């Protein structure tokens, strides 16, 4: 499955790719409290030849312990409060269910484009204002 036409992949470097994938996803996860999944998925498909769906699913399994560790650290450093987390948790579980139902009804391309646009907008606003 060649997902990166511009890169030369060497099978014997697999452990290195894994280390790089883990390290970068973990670092971003700790530094930014998220986004690790978006880094690890292309690394899995591109360098480790995961199928796209498997990459997405496995990425969650990889990021879960990492997020837990980061979350614990954030909590220890006082950057997290259960009191504030609770309403967000409730909202997100509800939203998650709604989103999952929604997913079957919209085209991937539309969602992907809207997502990119919103992220771009959010990024610009966060960076500049």
């Amino acid at each position, binding site marked *: 499955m060649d997902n990166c036409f511009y890169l030369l992949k060497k099978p014997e470097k697999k452990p290195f790719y894994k*280390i790089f994938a883990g390290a970068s996803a973990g670092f971003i996860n700790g530094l930014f409290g998220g986004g690790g*999944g978006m880094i690890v998925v292309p690394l899995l498909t591109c360098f480790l030849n995961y199928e796209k769906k498997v990459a997405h699913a496995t990425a969650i399994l990889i990021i879960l312990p990492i997020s837990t560790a980061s979350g614990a650290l954030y909590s220890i450093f006082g950057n997290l409060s259960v009191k504030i987390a609770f309403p*967000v948790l409730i*909202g*997100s579980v509800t939203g998650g269910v709604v*989103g999952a139902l929604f997913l079957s009804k919209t085209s991937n391309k539309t969602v*992907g*484009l809207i997502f990119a646009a919103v992220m771009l907008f*959010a990024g610009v606003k*966060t960076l500049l204002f």
Partner: protein
Amino acid sequence: MIFGLIISGIIGGVIGGMGMGGGTLLIPLLTELFGINQRLAQGLNLVVFIPMSVVALTIHFKKRLVKTEGIILIVLFGLAFCVLGSFLANKIESDILKRGFGAFLIIISVFQFMRTVKN
């Protein structure tokens, strides 16, 4: 304020439920719309991810979409480096961290756009 947190959670959850790595939008939602501190928003995003991912994983496991073989190395290095990242996040000045995150979002959005268009 609580209302804002719930709403942000819902929106973040909807996007996450659609499989779009939704957590990433929760943070700017919290910081830009509700003025929540960047570090706190990041911490919230981390926590929120946990229950959602457990649910998602049970579904993915049933569909046999999860490849567990050989991921220990990835996870180990992930854990090691997330410690480094978390320490840094705690040390860097909040405003700089926030803007750095903004830049990160922009970069990711470009890749996301390229990925979507490629298909």
